[in-house]
């Protein structure tokens, strides 16, 4: 039988005093205007909040009265650089964040696990200023999960974990003492590849399908070799146990093995596993087709093995640019509702 889950976290009202410091709606600063950022720009007009700043790799545009979200989305989709916009300011990002001082910062920059230092410093600065932070980028959270989640009443991580981050955050008080191990099928790209291979497609055909679904990371190799899954496992293990993950050893997908398993009635998934005892592994595993982890490529699953033998399963569909933007919006809606508009 199912059991009840924890309710949403209460707002840290002291930390949200920055809300609504001007005007009568919370202010937003979006950093990163790639495919995810552009998709989010399309959704923001529905939110009772005001986009006051947008930063890309070239510059920042800001206006206290608010920016035209959809126009900026179209501009970025055409390949435009903010540095070419009238009024744009070329500022180091940390300075831009400080100058704008929006109520909520949304980080939709590309993940760079190898250079997480600047991302961590940036997130630290946002949170130390009392702002709220919503993440799509994974690098800072993978490098410093405990530090960032200490501010979880002001932190949105739904998009980081494929639309399951809010569940982890909201249930963390329960999951931390009870979870003995976790298994995740967290990378939808490899699931899409596997599904295509099981149908008889070649690897190039399968990769094209994943591309068509918008699931490929900037560098496809980090999907296939397990780096992306490892990063997400690091986030979860760090959040649960303060664990520092073992070094990731790249894995390989063997199409022949995938097809053989499918013919025998089972399936394959890239499964990331960690335990309280310190085990940490990412590999392509054979799974029964009825396994809760045998999610289709439009979903991800995180299964937390609890003391007592039960299993808490989080299933998310915040995938691809639109799904990730939707997950960011989910976090923003929660933060806006918690802070309230004046």
């Amino acid at each position: 039988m199912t059991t009840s889950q924890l309710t949403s976290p209460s707002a840290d009202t002291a930390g949200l005093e920055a809300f609504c410091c001007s005007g009568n709606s919370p202010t937003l600063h979006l950093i990163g205007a790639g495919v995810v950022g552009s998709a989010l720009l399309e959704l923001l007009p529905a939110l009772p909040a005001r986009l006051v700043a947008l930063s890309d790799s070239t510059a920042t545009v800001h206006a206290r009265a608010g920016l035209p979200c959809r126009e900026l989305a179209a501009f970025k989709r055409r390949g435009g650089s903010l540095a070419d916009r009238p009024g744009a300011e070329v500022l180091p990002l940390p300075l831009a964040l400080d100058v704008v001082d929006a109520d909520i910062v949304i980080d939709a920059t590309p993940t760079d696990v190898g250079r997480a230092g600047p991302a961590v410093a940036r997130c630290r600065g946002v949170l130390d200023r009392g702002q709220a932070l919503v993440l799509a980028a994974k690098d800072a959270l993978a490098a410093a999960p405990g530090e960032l989640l200490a501010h979880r009443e002001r932190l949105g991580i739904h998009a980081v974990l494929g639309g399951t981050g809010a569940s982890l955050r909201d249930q963390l008080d329960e999951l931390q003492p009870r979870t003995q191990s976790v298994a995740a099928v967290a990378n939808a790209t490899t699931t899409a590849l596997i599904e295509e291979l099981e149908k008889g497609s070649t690897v190039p055909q399968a990769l094209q399908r994943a591309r068509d679904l918008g699931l490929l990371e900037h560098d496809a190799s980090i999907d296939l070799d397990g780096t992306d899954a490892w990063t997400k496992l690091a986030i979860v293990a760090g959040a649960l146990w303060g664990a520092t993950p073992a070094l990731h050893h790249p894995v390989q997908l063997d199409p022949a093995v995938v097809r053989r398993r499918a013919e025998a009635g089972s399936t394959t998934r890239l499964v990331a596993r960690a335990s309280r005892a310190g085990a940490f592994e990412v590999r392509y595993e054979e799974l029964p087709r009825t396994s809760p982890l045998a999610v289709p490529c439009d979903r991800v699953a995180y299964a937390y093995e609890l003391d007592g033998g039960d299993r808490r399963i989080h299933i998310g569909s915040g995938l691809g640019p639109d799904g990730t933007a939707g997950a960011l919006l989910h976090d923003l809606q929660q933060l806006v509702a918690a802070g309230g508009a004046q």
Partner: protein
Amino acid sequence: MTASITVSSGTHLFHLPLEFALRHGGVLHGAQLAFELFGPAHGPLVVVQGGISSDRRVTGGEAPRARGWWQDLVGPGRALDTTRVRVLGIDHLGGNGASTGPRSRDGIAVPAVTPADQARATALLLAHLGEGPAHFVGASYGGMVGLALAAEHPECLARLVAISAAHRSHPRATAGRWIQRQVVQLGIAQGVPGEALALARALAMTSYRTAEELGARFDAAPSWCGEQPEFAVARYLRARGEAFAADFDPDAFLCLSQALDLHRVDPRRITAPTTLIGVPSDPLVPIEDVRATARALAGPVRLVELPSRYGHDAFLKETEALASVLREALGAQEVAA
């Protein structure tokens, strides 16, 4: 959409298509069915579904909290002998279990679901499992699901047994359930959902059991607490209502109660061999409705009228009588001890 569910070991999940369109216009996004399989890895498959308070745990261990809701009829050596057959139990969509419903959606309202939606999800699950036509045994809400499956997905079905279910929800049953839902909605609005659900369940209990049974059990003078009389039947209803409300989500109750009332199937579309079991004393599913359903079925049909003092709850109580009907309906050599 995010789902968060807690399941025991042995629970399987089937992920429905990302956008699962419902009969009455809603869409479930990223929905799943939770199910369990009992019995050998190979063997005839029997899908078993019960009323709205039942779940995927059709049978289980002998310890009280491990027992399944139909343990007396499903298990090793029982009428549905799990040494010979595989029994598939599924949590209801929109219900209280681990299939997509209010509990798994963090309180987000589930659009209107119907037995036909559950039937379609079941058909997709059977296809995913690679199963050929399966037997289906359903009681109450489960019987409605079975009838919908037979009418709309005949390729999935070998034989159907529907207990205490007809082609429609009788307006009198709908009337009672509407009142129950108003009670629960009033309770939710007033901040006392659990108390309201207990009261609604108590009201429901009066529609399950017969006057004969209640009269035999509770015909006694009231006891007195000061100046207040306390009736034995009221104590019983209060206890049953509170026990139900302790573990049942009010929104799941609303969803499935409404689903019962949205049930409507054209029995003329059903060609699978069908056994209908109706209980003449059932206040919720009048025997006249079951007879009308039987007359309209297009395929081979057997109507069993089962006398019982338990009314609508006969499927939970009349173990011996049901056992012989099930063995005969599904083919004793195939399924039964």
